[in-house]
């Protein structure tokens, strides 16, 4: 008997928690529904437009792009192009990151802040294109050109984040280090840099999002391999399917690095200090 009544009363006695959970589940379901619907709608419009609104040669549909991807994959061009581009990003942005961080740390002092102010201003305001063209005309096809272009476009983003972090350094720690006559190197090593870590990471993420775009742009002008080069060739030959495949391929790869890998690392290592992470 007891069990029966229990079974009867159980469904009606819904706790508040249960209700909230149910509402949340419903919300999540709706969100995913609309999200997936948007994918379907956009891809359908794209597929419909290709060959109807615009010629198929001009706008290949998503199916065509996937086919082309397998074509290119079979030709074995993808690994070498990716390798070339990623190396360039690694070298260029790696240097840029250290230069940017160094400048940012220098800018602790008012004098250096004044000195580098215009450099940062110009680097942020200038279109990446101008550095690409200038370095391309000066250095030709040599590897140093793109590297300099990447540095000039991205270092300021790191600098800006670092100096943002410096503003938030606990003043009392700095005061204490001064009271105990701690040297500049030691102070930077033990107080400033650990405090800056999350800001540096945010700088890394922002910088990367710009760096890969500039890298592809430099490859369009002054390179004979890499993603940008392949894009240029296919657009000059009017092969839109290959062009779209290359750009989308690298786009999703970069997005994956930026949004999934870097963000996961950031969440994992800086969870303990979420509150101070630069936004």
């Amino acid at each position: 008997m007891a069990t029966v009544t229990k079974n009867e009363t159980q469904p009606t006695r819904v706790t508040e928690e249960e209700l909230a959970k149910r509402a949340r589940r419903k919300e999540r379901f709706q969100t995913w529904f609309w999200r997936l619907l948007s994918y379907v709608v956009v891809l359908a419009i794209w597929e419909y437009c290709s060959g109807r609104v615009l010629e198929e040669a001009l706008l290949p549909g998503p199916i065509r792009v996937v086919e082309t991807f397998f074509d290119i994959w079979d030709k074995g061009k993808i690994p070498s192009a990716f390798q070339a581009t990623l190396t360039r990003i690694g070298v260029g942005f790696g240097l840029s990151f250290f230069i940017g961080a160094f400048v940012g740390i220098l800018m602790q002092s008012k004098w250096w802040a004044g000195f580098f102010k215009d450099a940062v201003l110009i680097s942020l305001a200038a279109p990446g294109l101008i550095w690409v063209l200038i370095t391309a005309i000066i250095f030709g096809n040599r590897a140093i050109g793109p590297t300099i272009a990447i540095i000039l476009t991205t270092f300021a983003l790191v600098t800006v984040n670092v100096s943002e972090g410096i503003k938030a350094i606990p003043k009392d720690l700095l005061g204490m280090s001064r009271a105990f006559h701690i040297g500049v190197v030691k102070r930077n090593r033990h107080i400033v840099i650990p405090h800056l870590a999350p800001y540096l990471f945010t700088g890394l993420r922002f910088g990367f999002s710009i760096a890969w775009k500039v890298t592809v742009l430099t490859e369009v002008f002054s390179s004979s391999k890499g993603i940008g080069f392949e894009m240029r060739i296919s657009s000059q030959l009017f092969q839109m399917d290959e062009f779209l495949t290359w750009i989308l391929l690298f786009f999703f790869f970069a997005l994956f690095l930026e949004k999934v890998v870097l963000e996961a690392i950031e969440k994992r290592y800086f969870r303990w200090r979420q509150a101070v992470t630069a936004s």
Partner: protein
Amino acid sequence: MLGHYGWRVLKSPIFARVLFPFTMLALWLVSLDTIEKIWPFAIDVLPTPGEVGRFMWNELITETLARRNLYETFWISLRRLLTGFVIAMVVGTIIGLIMGLFRAANAFFHDWTMVLLAMPALAWALFNSLIFGFGDKGPIITVILAGIPFVIVNVREGVRNTPRELFDMARSYQVPRLKTTRHVLFPSLMPFMFAAARYCFSIGWKGLVIAEVFGGQDGAGWTIKFWYDAHRAHGVVGYAAFFVIFAILFERAVFEPISKRTFRWRPNLAGAEIVEEVFDEENTLEDFASVPSSEMIDDNE
């Protein structure tokens, strides 16, 4: 030797700021010299400051070898930029409002806004130049596509930051809808709209020059490509300098005064994500921190 006053001048940040261009110039001259001597094959050409200065002066007094002079060129580009900018602002605001007000719309547009936000302008530039050929259309559409996600993100954020209580109060006092929009939603949206306009403009400008390089037959981007193709290094450097000057000038001459006027009534704008005084003396760096604001869209997930 210098005396107290001299030291004070040397140590002031303003002196450092003035020193910077001279340091760069010195670095330029030194590298010109050393590279020629030590490593002559490392570079193709290195323009001298004199050449660049003369080129820029000639451009300014409209003596140029290019098809159009500096002012016409920048006017063409500016016209394109403004057209794209206005369209992006209008469409972006509508989408942003809808996204801020309806959860379903937010879920629908969210990922695609992200895609637009992360897509390099180069991709649009090449794509549009192939589809629309040479002319106004390609560059304008590039500006729209490059700028619109920033407008959407900012407006959506603005709608979400509108104080709920004010809406509730408006409803309980039975204020008509239009009036609520005019007096509640609009004022609190303004700073976000302003930030949107700034992003849209600067990103649009960067996208526009790339689009003009590939799909223009005039305009600033085309002209710098003209000097590039003519292999005039001093022309490229000089024109690049005009680009920077244009961007900074516009910011200072247009956005700053408008922002001062529009937000006079607000004593303190403490919104963390709002970029108000981008080139303001004190806050330059702080505000720039949020420039690549692909962040904002993630925050509310």
